[in-house]
């Protein structure tokens, strides 16, 4: 299929569904159409040629302010050029169609963003999409785009990919350059793809690898292509199953899923990482120290513009005793690829519109951070139990399992299913939060970023 046709299909799907999912904060229709025409004109071929994709809105997109989920950055100068990973994907023929919702400054796991409204899980609009790359996971799950980019500091690709049932990859720390993205915790920030298939994930990862002198965390390693090897099965791979802390803290349903996965892969080894609980604590403290230092100027000047929960956390972080940063860094360096559960919170995951500021942490935080925060810097692929976008026709057949059809309408059988008696449209059960106007294309403004724009990686 030609790039122009694929981009038009993506734009149509976004227009039809995003009023309910709220994955996008900017749709770049004009830019995407122009670039798709250029891809067709050049006759580009390859797995990414003409593939529409979108990025978490902490990636620079030329002409747009890089929001990082915040209200504060709306007044920042527009980015002068795209983030490096966006440029690399487009050089391979992919076409960026927009920017995606996220937790403010990537500090959260629910994408209940009070500035842009919450992103809703396409499989059940009453539930969260996870975060902080919630828009990235929801856009794939809703069938809006087959590929997105997100970031992962403490689980922000792994958690939403898991909750939205899509494939995700948090690569090993230092493998993908972060140039042109808004940072959170420099010691732990990773970028990575989310996709509808392993093949798209691998193709995107391959296109994005390569050195970048301006990211000091980049490992000095040559690119290691993966796409050609994905049909080889598990032969030649070293596989193990995480034991210890990961087994002790997992709920039975998660343990059973891990064992099924390990059995399918022929895993014969259990891997025990030392000091996992302490490493998790160290990661929390490193996040505190670096995140608070990053935002201290804005906490002083305009604390009222922060997300309420972020504000409380960041203020607490600023007040922590300083010497612990070094000890924490040394602790996390000591803690040490294997299947392990990520998130298992039966009955949880409901959106808490309007209740976030006063409430405690979302239950998904507690369910997820037992596992994710103890695995920093290691690679972490996420595989859905039942791959495939949210599809009203398919989901209706699973109604007994508690799922509710969410995304539509579509043409053909899916549209017929939408009209079926008894089919509930979840959005009718509650008000949709007000959306701010979408940016329709790159603006002409370009100028120096404001002083605190030093926070961005350029």
């Amino acid at each position, binding site marked *: 299929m030609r790039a122009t046709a694929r981009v038009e299909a993506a734009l149509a799907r976004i227009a039809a569904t995003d009023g309910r999912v709220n994955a996008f904060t900017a749709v770049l229709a004009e830019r995407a159409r122009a670039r798709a025409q250029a891809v067709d004109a050049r006759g580009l071929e390859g797995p990414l040629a003409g593939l529409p994709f979108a990025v978490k809105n902490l990636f620079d997109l030329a002409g747009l302010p890089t929001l990082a989920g915040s209200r504060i950055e709306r007044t920042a100068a527009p980015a002068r050029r795209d983030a490096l990973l966006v440029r690399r994907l487009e050089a391979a023929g992919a076409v960026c169609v927009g920017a995606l919702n996220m937790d403010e400054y990537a500090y959260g796991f629910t994408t209940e963003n009070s500035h842009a409204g919450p992103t809703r899980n396409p499989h059940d609009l009453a539930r969260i999409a996870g975060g902080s790359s919630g828009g990235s996971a929801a856009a794939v799950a809703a069938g809006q785009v087959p590929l997105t980019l997100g970031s992962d500091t403490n689980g922000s690709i792994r958690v939403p990919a898991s909750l939205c049932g899509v494939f995700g990859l948090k690569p*090993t*720390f*230092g493998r993908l350059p972060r140039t042109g993205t808004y940072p959170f915790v420099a010691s732990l920030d990773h970028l990575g793809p989310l996709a509808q298939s392993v093949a798209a994930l691998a193709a995107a990862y391959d296109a994005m690898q390569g050195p970048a002198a301006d990211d*000091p*965390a980049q*490992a*000095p390693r040559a690119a290691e292509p993966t796409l050609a090897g994905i049909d080889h099965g598990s032969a030649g791979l*070293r596989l*193990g*199953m995480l*034991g210890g802390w990961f*087994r002790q803290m997992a709920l039975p349903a998660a343990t059973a899923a891990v064992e099924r996965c*390990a059995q399918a892969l022929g*895993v*014969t*080894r*259990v*891997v*025990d*990482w*030392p*000091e996992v*609980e*302490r490493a998790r*604590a*160290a990661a*929390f*403290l490193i996040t*505190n120290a670096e995140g608070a230092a990053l935002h*201290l100027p804005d*906490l*002083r000047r305009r*604390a009222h513009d922060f997300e*309420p*929960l972020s*504000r*409380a*956390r960041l*203020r*607490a*972080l*600023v*007040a*922590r*005793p300083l010497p*612990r940063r*070094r*000890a*924490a*860094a*040394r*602790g*996390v*360096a*000591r803690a*040490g690829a294997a299947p392990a559960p990520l998130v298992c919170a039966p009955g949880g995951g409901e959106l808490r519109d309007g209740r976030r500021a006063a409430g405690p942490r979302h239950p998904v935080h507690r369910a997820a951070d037992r596992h994710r925060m103890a695995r920093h*810097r*290691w*690679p972490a692929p996420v595989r859905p139990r039942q791959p495939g976008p949210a599809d009203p026709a398919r989901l209706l057949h699973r109604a007994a399992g508690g799922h509710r059809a969410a995304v539509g309408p579509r043409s053909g059988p899916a549209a017929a299913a939408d009209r079926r008696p008894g089919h509930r449209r979840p959005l009718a059960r509650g008000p949709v939060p007000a959306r701010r106007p979408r940016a329709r294309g790159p603006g002409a403004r370009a100028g120096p970023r404001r002083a605190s724009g030093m926070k961005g990686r350029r």
Partner: protein
Amino acid sequence: MDPRRLDDLLDAQCALLGLGLAAEHRPGVIRYLQLARDLAALVMDFPLEPADEPGTVFVPVTPRHRRVEDA
């Protein structure tokens, strides 16, 4: 640590750093301070030598393992 000491710490740090803190935000900040305090105790309890330093470039190593049937 006496919980009241966290209040004292918060007041002192806010004054030092020039941070305002509205009364309604105080409980949330104290809650996260308590969490950080507890986790910091766990980290600080780990014995480290003066020469122990964090690695600036991450290099994965092969972890210890045992057989599944022995787990």
